[in-house]
């Protein structure tokens, strides 16, 4: 009897989308409902968050986080039993991503966004996909390595990031008298160091490593040994107070990270040549990252990892 009912329901569901709209849409809320009604999901991507989300040689978004989002989009499509789901793309910057999630312009933010308690008041985060600490990069010839070496220097960071906040706080707390310039995106900030406009660029170390690897003369740069923060979790961002959508996204990311596919995805972007110029970041899976992937968590607390 129960089997029969279940079969009937499945049949109904399969027949539903074209035949009886409303019946399904009624039970859905928030983002899921919107996606169902429009048959489209919008991803926010970044210009230059290598290798998480950035533009390749043809100016199309690619990257580790971007591919995770595509997988999530597939899961959403399956969950909603849609025949086809259009994936729309919207460029975001560090400064625009949170308001754009809140105001509904994008549904998932696929980039290098740190999940922290502060931001959780504005947005929700799914399971962590990377851990990174804040450090700075400078030209080797400047001999900058510790936080205190930045005393009185001109320092650049990307606006809207945890990095610029942390360096501001350190600057105030230790009275280092740095000039802190905000840049629109990571590529622009790194250029300021490359062209000598700034002495150092404070940012998540993995992004710095990728920028150095892609620079014209990678050997000319050094990343600080002292970190300005503990390793913090990166996660895909979504709208706050939308539990049904978050449940779908959480399930999809957890399934992906714990599967061999998740590991392969990591290896593809961190241990192999990546577009557009075939650089290899050579960041094999660390013990901490192994834990991140094998036991998915959406905690914002760095101590949880």
């Amino acid at each position, binding site marked *: 009897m129960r089997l029969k009912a279940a079969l009937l329901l499945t049949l109904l569901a399969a027949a539903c989308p074209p035949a009886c709209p409303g019946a399904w849409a009624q039970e859905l809320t*928030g983002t899921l409902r*919107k996606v169902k009604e*429009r048959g489209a999901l*919008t991803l926010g991507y970044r*210009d*230059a968050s290598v290798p998480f989300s950035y*533009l390749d040689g*043809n*100016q199309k978004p690619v990257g580790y986080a971007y591919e995770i989002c595509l997988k999530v989009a597939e899961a959403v499509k399956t969950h909603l039993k849609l025949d086809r789901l259009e994936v*729309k793309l*919207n*460029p*975001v*910057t560090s400064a*625009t991503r949170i*308001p*754009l999630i*809140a*105001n*509904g*312009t994008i549904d998932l933010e696929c980039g290098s966004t740190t999940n922290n308690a502060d931001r959780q008041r504005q947005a929700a985060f799914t399971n962590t996909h990377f851990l990174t600490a804040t450090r700075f990069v400078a030209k080797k010839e400047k001999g900058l390595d510790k936080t205190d070496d930045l005393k009185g220097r001109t320092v650049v960071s990307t606006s809207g990031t945890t990095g610029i906040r942390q360096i501001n706080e350190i600057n105030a707390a230790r009275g280092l008298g740095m000039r802190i310039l905000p840049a*629109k*995106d990571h*590529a*622009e900030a790194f*250029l300021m160091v*490359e*062209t000598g406009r700034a002495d150092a660029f404070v940012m998540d170390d993995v992004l710095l490593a990728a920028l150095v690897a892609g*620079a*014209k003369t990678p050997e000319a740069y050094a990343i600080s040994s002292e970190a300005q923060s503990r390793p913090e979790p990166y996660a895909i961002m979504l709208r706050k107070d939308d539990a049904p959508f978050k449940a779908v996204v959480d399930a999809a990311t957890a399934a992906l990270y714990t599967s061999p596919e998740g590991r392969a995805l990591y290896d593809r972007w961190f241990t192999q040549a990546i577009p*557009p110029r075939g650089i290899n970041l050579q960041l094999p899976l660390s013990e901490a990252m192994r834990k991140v992937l094998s036991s998915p968590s959406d905690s914002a607390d760095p101590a949880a990892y």
Partner: protein
Amino acid sequence: MLASLDLSVVATSLPYLFGEGMVFTLTLTALAASGGLVLGTGLALLRLSGVPGLTHAAKLYVELMRALPLVLVIFWFYFLVPYLGAWATGAAHPIQVGPFASALVTFTLFEAAYFAEIMRAGIQSIPKGQSAAARALGMSYAQTMRLVVLPQAFRNMLPLLLTQTIVLFQDTSLVYVLSLTDFLGAASKVAQRDGRLVEMYLFAALVYFAVCFAASLLVRRLQTRIAIVR
């Protein structure tokens, strides 16, 4: 120094620069100019309507827009438009607005304030006797405006309207702050990816100059022609 410029980066990125960037810039300019003109004419009519509430509302809008820097207005609308959309349509959640649509709304509403001032001057330049004559012929207010005043105001102001459109064309480059891919956005993305700032920004400046200079020469020719007819 100039000899060491690497022009191949410009050459290889031409399809992207023009196919994507310039198309975005031109489409945005054309649509925002048309929308801004319609809205601006409306605002000018409201401001000259003599109805106290309407006159003041239109004046307030125009003055406010003209007091604010475009960059700030761009940020405002990029974050605000979805909420406005929700409010306008009565939706429970902010509605989704793509980057192009958002930029279009921003520039249309911003330019409307500037077009409104031009059209106001244009309407005021038509001698009062003309509308009085039209009314005496039994035309309604709408007919007077549509058939007598606006066509002349529009023609007299055409050079100014076109000059403002050239300014708009230049101003669209400010969508750079939102990471959108207009012509300058495309150039800067290539510049930053390949570390070729000097080449790409010089090239962008050259293209903008060529387009705007040619357009302003055309406007000047048009101006002398109109002057003769008058």
